[in-house]
């Protein structure tokens, strides 16, 4: 562990550093999207990249998401590794057809002959007081789509290494970035790559009374909830899924077999959210271990609400603890 290669980075800066590293390592890596050039993206995640890597590799596209994804497919077929930025979660849908009918299926369609090593970065989630379409959590739409891989980072270290892992992947990866955590800081060692696969979940806090599973922006919330619970003498195990497709539920099964109770937390609407799959799969695998049904603490089955009431929509520390209470009540 070399502390001289560590620096305190926000998630946004960590992704920037990860992109930079990938761009340096592989001349085939490209960054494309709306406003990713001079502006550095509306969240500045691509800040400075165009200056350093030129307009051929970091380029502003016309304002059309289907075009972004569709031309990235062509670039990938030509041997490039495009990293597309979708400006906000709610704006991925014009590109959805290309993602579902082309990106997800090209490898399969070709009998394995073609590969699409491309990444689609999507800042997602709420809690930033934004207007409509800027606070959504569309990850389940992608996790339901065979052929796509879907991940979400929750801290600067993962942000830095996972973006590199996604770019290295020969499968297309949808990379969800927890936008309301963009500016949270932590020490990141820029050299010492953790020995953890891109598609692996991780226990980030051990506990014995109940298991809490989350990802992305809800990790911080759940960790704080676990700390609060600890003060009240309740021991929660917290697992960061990290990968939403394929799911890596091994650590969750293992945990639930010990705790017997599971709460799964996300911002997205409940029906058919990621938590639903976690609930169904865990119940299949750990049927005899479960003392309670899997409790889903999620957004409601409504469109994302106006900013002034988003706090009522989004799970927070109290709602997580309430979920735990409900699980313990069985």
């Amino acid at each position, binding site marked *: 562990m070399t502390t001289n290669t560590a620096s305190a980075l926000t998630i946004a800066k960590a992704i920037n550093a990860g992109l930079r590293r990938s761009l340096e390592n592989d001349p085939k890596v490209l960054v494309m999207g709306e406003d990713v050039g001079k502006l550095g993206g509306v969240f500045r995640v691509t800040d400075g990249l165009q200056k350093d890597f030129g307009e051929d590799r970091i380029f502003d596209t016309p304002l059309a998401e289907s075009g972004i994804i569709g031309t990235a497919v062509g670039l990938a077929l030509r041997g490039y590794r495009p990293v597309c930025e979708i400006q906000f979660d709610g704006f991925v849908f014009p590109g959805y057809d290309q993602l579902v009918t082309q990106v997800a299926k090209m490898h399969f369609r070709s009998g394995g002959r073609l590969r699409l090593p491309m990444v689609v970065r999507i800042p997602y989630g709420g809690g930033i007081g934004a207007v409509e379409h800027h606070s959504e959590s569309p990850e389940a739409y992608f996790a339901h789509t065979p052929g796509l891989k879907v991940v979400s980072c929750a801290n600067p270290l993962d942000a830095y290494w996972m973006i590199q892992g996604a770019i290295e992947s020969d499968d297309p990866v949808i990379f969800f970035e927890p936008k309301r955590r963009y500016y949270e800081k932590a020490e990141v060692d820029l050299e010492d790559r953790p020995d953890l696969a891109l598609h692996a979940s991780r226990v980030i806090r051990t506990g014995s009374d109940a298991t809490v599973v989350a990802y992305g922006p809800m990790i911080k919330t759940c960790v704080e909830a676990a700390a609060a619970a600890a003060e009240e003498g309740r021991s929660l195990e917290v697992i960061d899924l990290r990968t939403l497709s394929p799911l890596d539920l091994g650590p969750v099964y293992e945990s639930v077999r010990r705790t017997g109770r599971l709460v799964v937390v996300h911002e997205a609407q409940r029906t058919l959210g990621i938590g639903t799959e976690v609930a169904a799969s865990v119940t299949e695998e750990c049927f005899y271990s479960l003392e309670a049904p899997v409790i889903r603490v999620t957004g409601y089955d409504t469109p994302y609400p*106006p900013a002034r009431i988003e706090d009522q929509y989004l799970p927070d520390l109290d709602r997580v603890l309430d979920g735990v209470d409900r699980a313990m009540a069985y």
Partner: protein
Amino acid sequence: MTVDTAATSTRGAADGDPELVQLLTPEGQRVPHERYDALIDDITADDIREVYRDLVLSRRIDSEAVALQRQGELGLWASMLGQEAAQVGSARALRTQDHVFPTYREHAVAWCRGVDPAQMLGLFRGVDQGSWDPRENNFHLYTIVVGAQTLHATGYAMGIQRDGAIGTGDPNRDAAVIAFFGDGATSQGDVNEAFIWAGVTNAPVVFFCQNNQWAISEPLERQTRVPLYRRAHGFGFPGLRVDGNDVLACLAVTREALQRARDGEGPSLIEAFTYRMGAHTTTDDPTRYRLDTELEHWRLKDPIERVKAYMVRSEMADQGFFDGVEAEADELADRLRSQCRALPEPAPESIFDDVYVDTPPTLLAQRDEMVRYRDSFADEEGAR
């Protein structure tokens, strides 16, 4: 096969450019136009004063909203500074029965359609997602997904056709639709599909593109290499470029296009050549991507100053008039500030109210869950 790229570059439209319809120069000189003079020959000095008032008051709404955002009263604001003439000119060409589909930036159009300025703030304050009734002023809600509204506009126009509300010659019956969108939006599939639908169905819709030169940080060259108005020809309908900072020219060309639509002659595209003087929105920092010199250049073309100069020059108004409008603007701003703060906060349970016309039991159950959960805190508090 000859290359038909821009004779005029995308940026080239200068005053006096034959491709650019202009009736009022930046200096406030009314210049004659063979075709378009006739379209505004009914405009009286009173009308001009009204237009001036619209320009000034809508600008004040806009600048006040920017200030309210700075003060934390709004989460965001998309300023239309610099685009007042394009908006007021086109809006003043509308009849009551015409229908408008705006983007998120058409505050002056909203104003001209009679939308209460305070209602424009709801979305940006985060208390709602659009608070006026689109059927009241025939002014649709702001649409944020770039380009989506152009298809709605086209479909609405197809409805007007089916209602037999075109080509009857009855000025109170024949109706048209106007769809607003930006230069960036022209790259979206939806906008091009709207052009296709409108062309094929001959729908009574006017596509009004405010080319403000920027889509956030992207200059026009990232969306096209030829002037945007030419796009229309390939879809089989007329397109033209107008000086978007010239309210009279915008009025004239939009009147013509709307009347064509109402007469059953089909769609048109208007490219209003203008400039976004402010940031994209209050969260944007344009110094990262554009030069002050460009701003300076456009400041000389200010859409309000030229009307004022024209009015003074032709003695349509005296200082008293201008002071009066200014005072009215101050009052409006005052009112807007207090109205903004008084906008009702949404009730948390309202999340569940309008997801469906018929709220299903599953959603009622989630509402109950929310209420019970919140009540549990009240109980705790009560217990203390």
